[in-house]
């Protein structure tokens, strides 16, 4: 009951519209990743046209051909790659993206369910970050934060493709390391005039991480997926 008030949903909607970030849908009608995506595709296509023209027509490699080839091998694909990276990185934060691996689908389904009482579901309804709620709460997870440097984040992908998650009785996904309370406190100061007694009692534990905010008995369980503890059969089109 930190920020909750009965009318918060409607009220928040009005609020958010005015200070909407680029990814809030329906406000800026064309959305940024899609535009970038389109731009990247156009650059890639232009580059491919130049390269194919060279390969098929085989013009002499004179100065103007070189300039064309340079454009087709340098600026155009670089622009495509950079716009593509930004757009792809945006997409990897989306809930649907997390759900593209069927192991994650019970979690994404749970937060989609308006009836779900889970903490994650409650955090997935607002327009500010609801769309990216998984990533927001699991940010240090940073799977694609910076692909090349955070190779460690590829752990999930590796686990996904090297393990048969459909095998009967396979264990459900579990955290690699205890959940970091700092993810919660980045948004919730957790202290203040209405600070509940529990927070005061467990202050040291919360700060050290010994008491997890998302644990049962505190604000957990965050995900109401235990009925899916054994991952159900493959969800159509979910894999890859």
């Amino acid at each position, binding site marked *: 009951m930190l920020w909750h008030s009965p009318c918060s949903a409607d009220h928040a909607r009005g609020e958010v519209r005015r200070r909407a970030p680029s990814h809030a849908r329906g406000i800026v009608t064309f959305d940024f990743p899609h535009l970038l*995506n389109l731009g*990247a*595709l156009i650059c*890639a*296509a232009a*580059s*491919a046209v130049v*390269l*194919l023209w*060279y*390969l098929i027509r085989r013009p002499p*490699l004179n100065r103007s051909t*070189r300039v064309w*080839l*340079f454009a*087709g*091998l*340098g600026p155009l*694909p*670089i622009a*495509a*790659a950079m716009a*593509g*990276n930004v*757009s*792809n990185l945006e*997409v*990897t934060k989306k809930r649907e*993206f997390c759900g*593209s*691996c069927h192991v994650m689908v019970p979690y994404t389904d749970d937060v989609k369910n308006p009836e779900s009482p889970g903490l994650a579901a409650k955090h997935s309804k607002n327009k500010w970050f609801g769309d990216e709620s998984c990533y927001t709460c699991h940010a240090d997870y940073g799977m*694609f934060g910076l*692909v*090349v440097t955070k190779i460690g984040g*590829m752990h999930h*992908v590796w686990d*996904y493709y090297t393990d048969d998650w459909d095998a009967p009785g396979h264990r459900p996904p579990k955290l690699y390391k205890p959940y970091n309370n700092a993810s919660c406190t980045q948004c919730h100061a957790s202290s203040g005039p209405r600070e509940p007694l529990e927070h005061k009692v467990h202050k040291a534990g919360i700060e050290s991480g010994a008491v997890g905010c998302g644990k049962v008995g505190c604000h957990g369980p965050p995900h109401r997926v235990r009925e899916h503890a054994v991952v159900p059969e493959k969800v159509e089109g979910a894999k*890859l």
Partner: protein
Amino acid sequence: MSESTSEGGVTRAKVAEHVSETVEKRARWACYLSLVALGFIGWSLISQKPLPVIFAMTIGQLLGTLSLLLFLGSIALDVRARYKIKRTDLMPSSLPPSKQKD
């Protein structure tokens, strides 16, 4: 190749031909590599799913970078060779002996 009758001229023409063949071959390879890279990038843009995205951001970028380097390298090779040929025009004796024999 108007000077192909002169002894040094034959050598230079051959060298020049060899160089331009190499350069063209490398430029073509750069194009092939880049097309593959663009394929990966395009795939990730059309289907923004884990695997395409990973491929685009790793193999795609690697191949794309290599293709540009290959192309720039081949142009550098060409420029250097032309410069050398021009210089040997002024100083024919400076061509390596083995090549002068051809």
